[in-house]
């Protein structure tokens, strides 16, 4: 991440388009499933046929309210859909149904942290709207293909205040927002499929000066691209101004191949969207009772969950943060704790350590973990009740990863039950002491390092099953003579 030259300050505001996870479209009963054959999810309303009318999907309203409540925003008791007009082939009606003067969500905020420094980013508004279709420029030589499957998919457009000052803050805000909408269950967060995409408004100024002229870079669909696009834009704008030039208010496109942005259209050529309230739709009313009902149905949010993990399980901030980064991971961890009955910290070590490492290695998400939470709990429980040692547990874990079954079955099949019978351990040690007189003499003569040799021999003799604590203690006693 490049740093901003001294004497300059960047001002950044982000607009995030977040597809809502409703089963059907915002104004029709057509399915929203991604990846279907082109135009198979475009009914009469989606196609914008003559005479069709929109009917609001209340589930989209519920999801927008959930988002609003999660960022401490005001939920409008009455909000209004407006038509936003422009011509484009993948916009079937010649207008997009959006919200303009009376959005559903206003005045919220999100708290972020960059390098340990906390900062509050204001959320100006979030409004409901329908997505457009897709233009396919490569599919038919000489023609542009139109796929309207996506048209009419519900979106919330989340507009931040210009509170962001560099690309690191922008990425932190986006990641936090992403985590939030996924945790709320209102968005699948799939950036590659465009479920969560970002427009970045960037300007630069001398600190304390009024806002500079801003550019808007459209449709950036990864955290890294957002960082690159913002860094590029800041650097470009400073260069232009320092060379005596002026920034044009314009829309720009980010090219992921070069990491650069280029001008798409200037403000002079901007559309006059001619917003006006959509006469086909009634104002949407969300009563206080609706709000409370929706609030009661909301899952625990990441920030609250993190605090709870620290207090309830005694975890470090680092572990709590990691375990609550995804709700599926948090659920996994809590199942391990509950089912195993083991110490919360031990469970955390297994989940954040061995399990996440294994998942990372195989590129799998927690949802696709080859070891279920109940299975891992079974393993941790056997450590807790001293059936196996922590060391043996690593082997059992590997076997579980390889699909060899539950911990108990593996322990039984491989005869891995820990030897806790001190008589048996002492007998094994006696045999080793008797068989290695030279090493015993050396040890007793002051070569302390040889202790490890005896531990190794004893473990070997018990196939690693000896209780390590008992083995150490008895070995020490016996060697002391």
């Amino acid at each position, binding site marked *: 991440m490049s740093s901003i030259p001294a004497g300059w300050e960047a001002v950044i505001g982000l607009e995030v388009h977040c597809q809502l996870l409703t089963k059907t479209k915002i104004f029709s009963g057509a399915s929203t499933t991604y990846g279907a054959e082109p135009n198979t999810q475009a009914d*009469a309303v989606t196609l914008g046929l003559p005479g069709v009318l929109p009917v609001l999907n209340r589930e989209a309203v519920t999801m927008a309210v959930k988002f609003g409540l999660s960022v401490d925003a005001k939920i409008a008791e009455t909000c209004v859909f407006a038509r936003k007009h422009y011509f484009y*082939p993948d916009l079937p009606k010649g207008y997009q149904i959006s919200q303009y003067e009376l959005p559903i969500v206003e005045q919220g905020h999100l708290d972020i942290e960059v390098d340990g420094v906390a900062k509050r980013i204001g959320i100006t508004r979030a409004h409901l709207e329908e997505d457009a279709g897709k233009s396919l420029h490569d599919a038919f030589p000489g023609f542009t293909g139109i796929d309207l499957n996506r048209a009419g998919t519900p979106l919330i457009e989340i507009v931040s205040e210009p509170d962001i000052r560099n690309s690191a803050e922008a990425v932190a805000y986006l990641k936090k927002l992403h985590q939030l909408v996924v945790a709320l269950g209102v968005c699948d967060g799939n950036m590659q499929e465009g479920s969560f995409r970002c427009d970045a408004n960037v300007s630069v100024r001398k600190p304390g000066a009024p806002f500079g002229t801003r550019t808007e870079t459209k449709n950036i669909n990864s955290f890294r691209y957002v960082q690159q696009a913002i860094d590029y834009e800041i650097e470009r704008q400073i260069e232009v101004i320092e060379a005596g030039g002026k920034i044009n208010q314009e829309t720009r496109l980010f090219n992921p191949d070069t990491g650069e942005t280029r001008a798409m259209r200037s403000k002079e050529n901007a559309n006059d969207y*001619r917003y006006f309230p959509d006469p086909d739709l009634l104002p949407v009313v969300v009563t206080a009772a609706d709000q409370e009902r929706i609030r009661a149905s909301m899952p625990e949010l990441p920030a609250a969950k993190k605090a709870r993990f620290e207090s309830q399980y005694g975890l470090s901030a680092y572990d709590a943060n990691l375990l609550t980064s995804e709700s599926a991971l948090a659920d996994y961890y809590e199942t391990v704790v509950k089912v195993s009955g083991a110490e919360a910290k031990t469970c955390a070590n297994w989940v954040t350590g061995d399990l996440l490492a294994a998942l990372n290695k195989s590129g799998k998400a927690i949802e696709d973990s080859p070891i279920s939470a109940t299975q891992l709990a079974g393993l941790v429980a056997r450590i807790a009740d001293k059936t196996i040692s922590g060391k043996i547990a690593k082997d059992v874990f590997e076997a579980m990863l390889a699909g060899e079954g539950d911990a108990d079955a593996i322990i039984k099949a491989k005869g891995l039950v820990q030897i806790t019978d001190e008589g048996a351990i002492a007998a094994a040690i006696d045999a080793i002491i008797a068989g290695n007189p030279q090493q015993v003499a050396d040890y007793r003569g002051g070569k302390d390092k040889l202790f490890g040799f005896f531990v190794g021999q004893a473990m070997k003799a018990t196939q690693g099953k000896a209780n390590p604590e008992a083995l150490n203690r008895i070995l020490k006693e016996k060697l002391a003579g």
Partner: protein
Amino acid sequence: MHTLSLNELAAGLKARKFSSRELTQHYLTRIAERDGALNSYVTVTPEIALAQADAADARLARGEAGALTGIPLAQKDIFCTEGVRTACGSKMLDKFIAPYDATIVKKLHAEAGMPLLGKLNMDEFAMGSSNETSFYGPVKNPWDLGRVPGGSSGGSVACVAAGLAPVATATDTGGSIRQPAAFTNLTGIKPTYGRVSRYGMIAFASSLDQAGVVARSAEDAALVLQAMSGFDPLDSTSLERPVDDLVAGLGASIKGLKIGLPKEYFADGMSAAVRAGVESAIAQLKTLGVEFREISLPNAPLSVPTYYVVAPAEASSNLARFDGVRYGHRSVEARNLEELYKKSRGEGFGAEVQRRIMIGTYVLSHGYYDAYYLQAQKVRKLIYEDFKRAYTEVDLILAPSTTDVAFPFGDKSDDPVAMYLNDIYTIAANLAGIPAMSLPCGFSEGLPVGFQLMGNYFDEGRLLNVAHQFQLATDFHRATPKGF
């Protein structure tokens, strides 16, 4: 057969005096023989009509017939009909075969069992008051072939007046049912906004558009309106409120009913012929026990300018979907995307539609929105409040339907403002969303004169009953044009 009322036709069908096939064929024959002079149909659908007639005959035979089963009907070409061209009077949709049925099409044909005779000519996208803006040429008034039938539902009224359909659907955004009904001696009703579903009705101005019916009597109109009305989950502006029994309400006495005469509507502006007709209607209603009183609708004179901001604004938006991309006219001349839009729309839309799109685009533009659209919405609210206040004093309001009788072709077609002023008496009802109707009250030099009744919200039943009582006492509505 084509002079019988709907109730008489239903009785004939039930008594097996004639079958629905015979009745439907009778109309199809009349259309084939006589519509050449009128141009009221743009598409005749004999195969569909006869198949639906056979289905109706089967229902009649099973004793499962409703009040309208087997009686044919023609649809204004603004309603989408699956598998049948739905052109809305425009070159833009000349080749558009609708892939779905409008809600009222389902209700009238599939449910009520009325055979579809065909699709009726109209002003392009319902924008016009004379039917001269249709891509399919003007409709002629059967009372005088040199005169307009009114608009935009010109085809609807001409075919019913001439006996080329027993009854027809129509739509009314600013008077498009009432003015043509007045010009052709018919009874036409525009119900309360939201009473009839707009789903599948090609939108002109969404907040004003309302479907209704043109018929040869209030009783006929009541029967068909009853079958069209009701809540539709596909139309968010449709009313979730039970529909009164419009037909059962036709017997009630109107003695003691209070009707208001808005002084703003009786000032200068109407012709002597219209004034005489309206005054005779008032006199006739007095003999039936109706009490009249003068009322004031002070903002009524602002109706026309308000309408000509709101309606074009909504139209400019509603017609944006006709872009040549997915359906409708696509220019073969276009070499790039911008040309595709400009040429397809330039070629597909006629002059009046283009004019209204321009006006609408202008009033919604940045910097003009507040001065025009927002201001018009405020005036609209005042007009609505005028009516609300008036209905605390009176039950109904009576007014002229038109300024004059039907005018000759070409009379106003070069002067949009003169054409727009045609709707001066009818527009306020659309702006307020109240039900309103026109019915015959006399003739002037052989041309029909109508008068208008406006009701309170949801009061279609009372409107129709007053009209019915008037028609029991008069026989203007029974007159038919010579030669038809």
